[in-house]
């Protein structure tokens, strides 16, 4: 069994994933930016959550991005859950 991804690994995965899927010209994705600020709509939120579930092997709820509204906050929460 491979080691659980670290908080930093989750953060950079999210930055890379969102930069690729949202493809925002003239805007860089940063870890402290809220998902709302990136213009993430509910369909894209669902897709992000599903990708994270598949990668981390966790069951996540659609409300997760409301509760953890930035990449940093989300990565902290997920890293905590994967290490449990």
């Amino acid at each position, binding site marked *: 069994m491979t080691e659980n991804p670290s908080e930093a690994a989750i953060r950079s995965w999210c930055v890379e994933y969102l930069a690729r899927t949202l493809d925002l010209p003239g805007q860089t994705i940063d870890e402290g930016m809220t998902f709302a600020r990136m213009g993430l709509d509910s369909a894209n939120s*669902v897709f992000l959550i599903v990708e994270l579930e598949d990668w981390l092997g966790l069951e996540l709820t659609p409300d997760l991005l409301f509760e953890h509204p930035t990449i940093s906050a989300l990565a902290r929460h997920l890293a905590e859950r994967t290490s449990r």
Partner: protein
Amino acid sequence: MNSTTAEFSLEAGPSGRGEFSSLVDVLRRRAADQPDDPAYIFLPDRQGERVSLSFSEVYARSQAVARRLVKRGQKGDRAVLLFAPGLDFVVAFFGCLLSGVIAVPMMVPRRASSRDASAAIMADCLPRFAMTSRDLLTHARPDLAERFRTDRLDWIFVDSCSADSGKRQCPLPLPGPEDIAFLQYTSGSTSAPKGVIVSHRNLLENSEMIRIAFGNTCKSTHVSWVPLYHDMGLILNVLQSLYLGALCVLLAPVSFMQRPLRWLRAIDEYRAEVAGGPNFAFELCATRHRPDELKGIDLSCWKVAFNGAEPVRARTIERFAATFAPYGFDIKSMQPAYGMAEATLLISANRRGTGPGTCNVSREELQRNRIGAPAHADDTQILVGCGRLLFGECLAIVDPETLAPLGPRLVGEVWVAGPHVAQGYWRNPEATASVFKARTASGDARHWLRTGDLGFLDEHGELYITGRINDLIIIRGINHYPQDIEETVQDCHPALRRHCGAAFSLPDQNEEEQLVIVQEVERTLRREIAVEEIIATVREVVAREHEIAAREIVLIHTGSLPKTTSGKIQRQLTRQRFLAGSLSRV
């Protein structure tokens, strides 16, 4: 029928029609004739139990709801329906029909949004009741009661209307065919929504048209994830299956978005014949296809995969059919269809087993609303047909300026007449007259519905939709009015000029429509503005208020947005300049 124009008509009524006097009649018949057959099943996400209702249970629960409504209101009162995905919506809807209260299905407003259509819908239909479930209002979304506080609603929890409440059972009215069944609010902008008045007759007639086109029987199990406040979810699934006496299996929309293959597994498990959605749903299934998640799945039972509510893409059909052919899916099951709430739902579709029709045309000619042979390979655009007209309706292609009916392969506005065309918009005589009471220049006395869609008929009567007269934006099957988006943008920052923006959509490399916003900035503020900051703000408010991730936001110089001499925004021209890279960017 005039043989020189592309007007088609099939008016002889089949024998099935006229059998029922209302949808209430249908429900009572099903409850009497097949009381224990399962009518609706709701499949849970991960947690939660599978919920199932037989025809007699649906009838009994709806009667309990109807009695409560009759006790507290009167015939013709409106009731908004606010539900999380599940069978409570179905019970509430039939409860309304059984009581003579007019149902108004509505999307549950998103928590963060401030300007969705809900407030304007409330103001338009002035409901007495709001129907919901106790769980949604007290646990999941307590903010809803506060949001609608000033509307003085009588809240009805359908999950606590027990079937044996009320010892003295009050009699329930029997609606006639001309009585209003419900209002469908999918038309009009956020600020001025229009409620289509759908009668029992409209529903029965369109249900029969759908039955004939799709070749449905009481064995035609449906599996759907489309929201029930969307007319496709309600009429093409929940009401069609009742009309047939067939089973309808429902999944939550979010469940489908998360795991689209669940839909396909449910189709296999229940041996469903009918299942469909907007084009993006088929694209999503093909994208998320994982062979290990579909082991042993057999989709050969799937006979009608209807595809509608947004433009149907040839590439998506091919990709979906190729991906799922190894599981027994037959491309002949693909049923591109066309419809709108103003015609209850369905306007055109092919007959079961026909498969989709396609037509290669010149891309360049099409941009000028003309149909011609492609000049070269790069000029080829493959259009997918939306089937032929339905039994009992008339369809014409009409020049939107001269109102003259046009012949085959000429692009004009699609006009429709028939018993499924609704009576009009709720308390809106002006819009009703202009949309529902149109007359052609050929002098026929018939009243036509103007769909606002552009298209043409080929020699065989296959309908092709090519665009819109207005600039409606359709993303994932949801209609957005550009004016609404432009107003949201202009409200979010003082540097953005009022009435000087254009929102439109463009297909991306996957042929999915993406939103583009072009907006002028104030001359006086130009020097100080932080472009990136404004763009991020625009992106945030558009996602929050309209649920769309804007692909590109372009700020342009004062006075450079294309407008007509009378000051009308030219969205198509803006789009062309955006593509040509000739906008005056800040």
